[in-house]
């Protein structure tokens, strides 16, 4: 209930598209009954969670922040949603995102942009140059990053304890970094994608956003494992694990990929990255510089493969079986065209057009096949580095801290995505697990996170190291003025 009222009072963040108040209260009630009987369904029983609005939730609207699916109520639950519900989790609502998860700001959905809760934190306000007029105070708010901005904001503002995002090019880690929360991208094939409305089938994974690494491990434990409904999940049995407290890092080998010193990386983050490396070194770990030489091709490669798959995945939205249908009914073709023009925003349509271009017979070899080959090279970079004894890679997650919305929208979605995805994208190409751990506040009082990338299916090792790091940096809690009373009660574990 506290979460629900908090959601209401933080409505200006625009983190939620749909709040499932009735069902959530009912679920909470049932959960309480179970606890009274001493029979909780699982670790997550009673825990309020939020789910990004590109996951199917039976009976609750799923829109993908698009006109195409406004009002669409799915008849089934995504596997991950079902798993959470089976554990007794309380589903608070669906969070906001960039339309169809395309974007790095959570600004391009039909329900409007998501505001970073840190815009209203004492830490940010103290550091921001006060504008002369009071109305300008509001226009200074910063973005959450994307595309899972709603989920990140929801977790960050204490309206829920964990949230599901999705990660195709960094969509979970990026907003996690900007909102100061933990964002985990699991290995491709570990968690079922059944019910996650796809962006790029060969790169998408469900992402986990929580306030601390331990929580991420808990949620991962409930979600991972083979799903017969998703043929790309691995068959091996997955055993949920608890994170031990790492005391001795001397056996650890941390790799610092030099190519991640990308153009545009703020000096602040560069310094933080360096400091983190030193942290490990001083604790006895082996810290070495490594090279992932094909990193600079990953953005272009990603754009080809992503748009191609998008063009294919979006082909099903024709208004015939579900979703928006245009009134145009002169012919099937004209209905399709009008429906898709009305239903999709420019970003989506742009990607569809590009993707179709790359898939044309005359272009397929030069673009799609070539991109697949480059993808293989990028993945091999990682294989080589991990094969040479490196356990974990340490990189920045974003190029800078969150920028104000007014500044962000000066460039178009494509430009922004190309800039912002550079540090997170390669992990999706290679299918590797990666996690953002909030590290420190920037000079402007905004969160900055660092990223750890691990070996395939070695989430346990990845999270163990992340947890150790989290403990070392002691990232400060967000101080949201208006609701401090409420917050203190909720934020206690």
């Amino acid at each position, binding site marked *: 209930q506290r979460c629900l009222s908090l959601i209401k009072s933080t409505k200006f963040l625009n983190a939620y598209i749909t709040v499932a108040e009735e069902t959530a209260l009912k679920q909470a009630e049932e959960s309480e009954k179970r606890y009274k009987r001493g029979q909780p369904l699982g670790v997550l029983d009673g825990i309020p969670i939020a789910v990004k609005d590109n996951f199917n939730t039976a009976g609750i609207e799923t829109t*993908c922040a698009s006109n195409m699916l406004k009002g669409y109520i799915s008849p*089934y639950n995504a596997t991950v949603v079902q798993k959470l519900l089976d554990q007794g989790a309380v589903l608070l609502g669906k969070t906001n995102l960039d339309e169809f998860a395309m974007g790095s700001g959570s600004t391009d959905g039909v329900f409007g942009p998501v505001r970073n809760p840190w815009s209203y934190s004492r830490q940010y306000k103290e550091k921001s140059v006060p504008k002369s007029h009071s109305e300008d105070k509001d226009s200074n708010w910063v973005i959450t990053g994307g595309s899972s901005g709603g989920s990140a904001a929801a977790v960050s503002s204490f309206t829920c304890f964990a949230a599901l995002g999705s990660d195709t090019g960094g969509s979970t880690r990026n907003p996690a970094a900007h909102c100061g929360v933990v964002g985990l991208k699991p290995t491709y094939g570990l968690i079922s994608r059944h*019910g996650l*409305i796809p962006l790029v089938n060969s790169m998408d994974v469900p992402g986990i956003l929580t306030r601390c690494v331990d929580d991420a491990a808990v949620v991962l434990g409930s979600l991972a494992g083979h799903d017969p409904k998703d043929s790309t999940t691995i068959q091996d049995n997955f055993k949920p694990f608890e994170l031990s407290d790492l005391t001795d890092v001397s056996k650890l080998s941390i790799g610092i990929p030099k190519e991640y010193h990308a153009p545009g990386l703020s000096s602040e983050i560069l310094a933080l990255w360096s400091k983190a490396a030193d942290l490990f070194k001083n604790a006895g770990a082996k810290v070495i510089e490594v090279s992932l030489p094909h990193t600079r091709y990953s953005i272009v490669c990603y754009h080809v493969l992503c748009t191609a798959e998008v063009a294919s995945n979006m082909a099903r939205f024709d208004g015939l*079986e579900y979703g928006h249908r245009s009134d145009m009914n002169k012919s*099937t073709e004209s209905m399709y065209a009008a429906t898709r023009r009305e239903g999709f925003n420019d970003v989506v349509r742009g990607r569809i057009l590009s993707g179709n271009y790359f*898939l044309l017979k005359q272009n397929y070899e030069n673009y799609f096949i070539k991109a697949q080959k480059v993808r293989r090279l990028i993945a091999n970079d990682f294989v080589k580095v991990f094969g040479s004894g490196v356990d974990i890679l340490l990189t920045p997650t974003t190029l800078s801290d969150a920028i104000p919305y007014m500044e962000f929208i000066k460039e178009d979605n494509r430009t922004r995505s190309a800039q912002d995805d550079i540090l997170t994208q390669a992990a999706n190409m290679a299918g590797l697990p990666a996690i953002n751990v909030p590290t420190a506040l920037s000079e402007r009082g905004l969160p900055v996170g660092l990223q750890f990338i691990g070996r395939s299916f070695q989430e346990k090792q990845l999270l163990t190291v992340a947890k150790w790091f989290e403990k070392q940096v002691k990232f400060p809690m967000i101080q949201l003025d208006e609701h401090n009373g409420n917050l203190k009660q909720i934020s206690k574990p």
Partner: protein
Amino acid sequence: SKLFSGSQVQFAAPPNSLVSFFDASLPGTLPVLNRRCVEAAVMTGLALNCSINKKSLFDRKHYFYADLPAGYQITQQRVPIAVNGSLSYSLCIDNKMSQMVTKTVRIKQIQLEQDSGKSLHDDVRSQTLVDLNRAGVGLMEVVMEPDMCCGEEAAAAVRELQLILQTLGSSQAVMAEGQLRVDANVSVHHPGEPYGVRTEVKNINSIRFLAKAVDYEIERQIEELESGGTILNETRAFDSKLGCTVPMRDKEGKQDYRFMPEPNLPPLILYNARSLPANMNHQQVVNIDWIHERLPDLPSVKRAKLVEQYGILPEHSFTLLNEAGLTEFFEDVIKQTQMKPKKVIGWILNDLLSYLKQHSLTVKESPVSSFLLADLLNRLEKKEISSTAAKQVFAELWKGEGKTPLEIVKEKKLQLIQDQEDLERICQAVIDGQENEVMAIKSGNRKVLNKLIGLVQRETQGRSNPVLVKQLLEKKLSE
């Protein structure tokens, strides 16, 4: 069930009653490959002497159409499941069943793919109704090389393929129910020259129409070329009422299907005994060798066995296999009668089958059971009745009134006279009454004997065995 989803497959079910979330292309649903479809494809590939690709891939073929909910079809464009096979079939030369020749058509490949739904165009209300029951049903596309030269060959090849599929159980292959669909690609060329431009003929709904459509198209193309025209690489529809092909409205123009690998399905890996990993049992994977060992006898093998076992002619074996249930019926009769198979086959093919055809019945629906027929044939063998009488009994049995052959014989007084003395007496009587004929016979005109036989038959109301009568008459006349 369907190729990638758990929906049922059923002919003529109420519209949109067999559609799963995946078939309706609800966002977020994913394909899961149906093992039985894979096994059916492997069986078919093996029966057609194909190489089975141990690794095959799935692709998306994109085009927009109302009966294709996802906007793409999942198919196997790059690497299909089976390639490079052959199909042997037989043709009668000059319509004489006694002269059969064997031909072969090469099989290019077999691929697994999804079927689309059905659209019904309602021009009156300017609307199209879409039924997705069929969407997602598994299809095996068997692609043949252009090794056939006329409608008859095409029909024979497809008929044989149909029999093979039915024997394997990989498809019921009933064309009328859309379980087997045939598109014919036809081109003409002068001997020695390269193949001409081909047209694709669709909307062929039976094997008979296949032959007609192919022959018509060949004629049409020859006429077109001889009058100085050209053949367009187009799709034509066969109009069964008019017996001709007409161009289909080419709504798409040159279609670029933007093929892309299907990212949600890993490559399909099949194993054989050698490559099977030690810790996997055959329940978890598809083992080509395991399937191979369990293939049933193919039609050509069955036919050869029938010829060898029963001494019937090859063309008989074709007819037996061509009619559902006829072989079983034949073998059932054999089991229950002393009559030799070589004679039984005549009854099966000439009598039973022609009655069935006349009344458009299947073997299953035959009013005469194998038991009854065997009984009848036994009586014929024991010479209780003449063969003419037997045909009469058969006609009577056909009425399906539940009478046994014995009852019918008694009722119609068809029993052959068994008393030799009685018969001798009648023969003598006839001889005595036909002095002129007797003299003619004695002076060498043997043909007149038939008249005497005929008289005896009349006297006995057809109840005398003509062979025996002939013997008796000859004996008496030579005395």
